[in-house]
């Protein structure tokens, strides 16, 4: 294992100070991505500042038409939360399909969103529901948060404290998982919201994006058949040993139709 200086944060402010005070500090949430990354020396920070255990970053509350989830809340907690299942069942379904049970017991929503792996599930929900990412410094609109592959609008050392998800009229998330890792080869989050239909695609591109042509078609007619004839360009989509860009483009249409159907 790569050698680093481990520091446990006592609070969000303490974590920010510890990262700022380190030569090259990094934050650790559940560690489900960071620890394997450190083993492979794909990240070589001087200091790892652990915020995973901070109590004020845990928990779920529903009020004022939104579900607020503390950034260090685990996927397992979200998947099994009666509040989440009641308000946004699609979000519980999404969380229940991340990785495997052991990963869900440690991995966190904030860690996933901050890392912005192109194949992660949560970016689909943040974009698809038009969520707000709340940090120790400001609020960032979901639409402005994901800026590129593993890139976000977060400043160096900025800490996500919670994410607020507006409760939609209907929503569903459907993914075509890699059968080994359960990462999304393509995942599509569809939501009917107060501001119209939102369709967010994860896994297919360098970062999650909205399928605006599909949104327009579904605003006119919210049914799977409304997506007939809409093809997504494979330009710029991911290609790897699991799926070509053309295959991913095709899957976007298939997953979107299934998600619309699952909205009922």
């Amino acid at each position, binding site marked *: *294992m*790569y*050698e*680093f*200086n*481990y520091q*446990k944060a006592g609070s969000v402010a303490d974590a920010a100070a510890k990262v700022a005070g380190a030569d090259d500090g990094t934050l650790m949430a559940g*560690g*489900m991505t960071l*620890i*394997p990354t*450190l*083993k492979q020396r794909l990240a070589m920070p001087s200091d*790892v500042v*652990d915020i*995973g*255990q901070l109590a004020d970053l845990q928990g779920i509350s529903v009020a004022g038409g939104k579900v607020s989830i503390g950034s260090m809340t685990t996927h*397992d907690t979200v998947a099994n939360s009666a509040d989440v299942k009641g308000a946004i069942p699609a979000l519980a379904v999404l969380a229940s399909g991340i*990785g*495997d*049970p*052991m*990963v869900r*017991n*440690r991995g966190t929503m904030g860690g996933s969103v901050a890392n912005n792996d192109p194949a992660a599930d949560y970016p689909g929900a943040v974009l698809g529901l038009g969520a707000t990412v709340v940090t120790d410094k400001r609020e960032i609109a979901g639409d402005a948060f994901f800026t590129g592959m593993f890139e976000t609008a977060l400043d160096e050392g900025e800490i996500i404290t919670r994410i607020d998800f507006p409760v939609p009229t209907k929503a569903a998330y459907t993914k075509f998982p890699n059968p*080994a*890792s*359960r990462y999304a080869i393509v995942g599509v989050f569809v939501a009917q919201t107060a501001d119209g239909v939102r369709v967010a695609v994860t896994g297919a591109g360098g970062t999650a994006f909205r399928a605006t042509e599909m949104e327009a078609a579904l605003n006119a007619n919210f049914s799977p058949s409304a997506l007939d004839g809409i093809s997504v360009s494979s330009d710029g989509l991911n290609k790897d040993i699991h799926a070509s860009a053309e295959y991913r483009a095709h899957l976007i249409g298939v997953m979107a139709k299934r998600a619309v159907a699952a909205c009922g």
Partner: protein
Amino acid sequence: MASVSMTINGKQVSGEVEGRTLLVEFLREHQRLTGTHVGCDTTQCGACTIHMNGEAVKSCTMLAVQAEGADVSTIEGLANGDELHPMQEAFREHHGLQCGFCTPGMIMSATALAKRNPSPSEDDVRHWLEGNLCRCTGYHNIVKAVMAGARAMNA
């Protein structure tokens, strides 16, 4: 070096570790609890599965210092003397192993499932075991063992 204390299989232990020391290294090399295996060391195979505060986690993807103050159980803590735990007995009875390398992780994962779901279906078991890889059995007898073991644990 940092000092770390935790309860392992009901016994209070402490030791000096580096920040980078993995929990599985602390269990195997410091505590000599070698029943917990390292298969892939990349969070995929689940051979290192243990329970921390009652929930299954992969001990190769946690630092020992992250388990500070935790209640840890490993495969060594399951049997009662010579009497196998019901899940171990179910694996024996249903031939849920061949080489046995994945078995400690399988059993720790299975007992976590049984605590949540006293009577899991075949689908429930197969979905739950997505994080535990076996390269011998083809899973068929493991699934049978987990279903039987869960019922025996909750009988």
